[in-house]
């Protein structure tokens, strides 16, 4: 019998999160998010809001929006569907934790390992975003969150501070390609 715990490997496959600073732009792999999706069961919209109020402190966000409050974030990803993000260290089995809270009001699915997360910061990220996706990045303000297409990859972009601080979720299996795209574009605009 094995008694040795398995060691996790983060998405870019290096020993530590990769941090790149190019010009005024910092691109930082962030492996510390637990992610779960929740989808409301038929007719249970009110119940799920009530159950989650203690978790996120306010109502679940509407289309194109995220609630970024405290350690838990909630992001609208589709009709009746949200991603919930929390620190991985304290929420190792986040989906299970949420399912206990939500019971039969929502379907909960483990998503932590489906995504690579990059924190992108800088004094002006608009030129970078203009090279990456078709969103009108100038108009994104804190709490805006939407799916977008970056170099053929379906990503989720969350604005934390207009023009200066974004979190990008991309498909984990393409983490290396996505990172390459971000770094290349950053060099191009730096």
């Amino acid at each position: 019998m094995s008694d040795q715990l398995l060691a996790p490997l983060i998405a870019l496959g290096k020993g530590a999160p990769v941090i790149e600073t190019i010009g005024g732009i910092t691109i930082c792999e962030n492996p510390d998010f637990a992610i779960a999706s929740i989808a409301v069961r038929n007719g249970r919209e009110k119940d799920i809001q009530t159950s989650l109020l203690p978790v996120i402190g306010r109502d679940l966000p509407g289309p194109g929006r995220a609630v970024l409050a405290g350690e838990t974030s909630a992001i609208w990803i589709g009709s009746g569907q949200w991603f919930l993000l929390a620190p991985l260290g304290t929420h190792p089995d986040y989906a299970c934790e949420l399912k206990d809270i939500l019971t039969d009001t929502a379907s909960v699915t483990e998503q932590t390992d489906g995504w690579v997360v990059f924190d992108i910061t800088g004094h002006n990220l608009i030129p970078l975003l203009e090279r990456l996706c078709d969103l009108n990045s100038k108009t994104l303000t804190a709490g805006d969150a939407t799916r977008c297409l970056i170099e053929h990859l379906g990503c989720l972009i969350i604005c934390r501070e207009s023009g200066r601080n974004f979190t990008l979720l991309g498909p984990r299996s393409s983490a290396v390609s996505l990172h390459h795209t971000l770094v290349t574009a950053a060099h191009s605009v730096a």
Partner: protein
Amino acid sequence: MIINHPLLGPRDAQEFVYLGDAGLIDRPDVMSETALDEFHDYLYLRNNPAGTHKELWFHEQGDRSWLVVTRNMTTHEITHVELASEYAKHRGRDR
């Protein structure tokens, strides 16, 4: 083209996958006595008018919603966009 998503606002058609005639929502009853003929027409006789047309688009790189887009096939003018699930319910698909 730009599709004015009912929830997310204007989005580039590049984010969508096209299916075609929204008549595909009106799937016949399997139990009908003439089901074979009805399914044949349902599947193979789709509209493709030189004018206004209701068609299905899937927001694959967005919120994964199916939309019913009313578009003029000759000018590409889009006059109405709605969620296919709502449209389907209005058409009596309640199961």
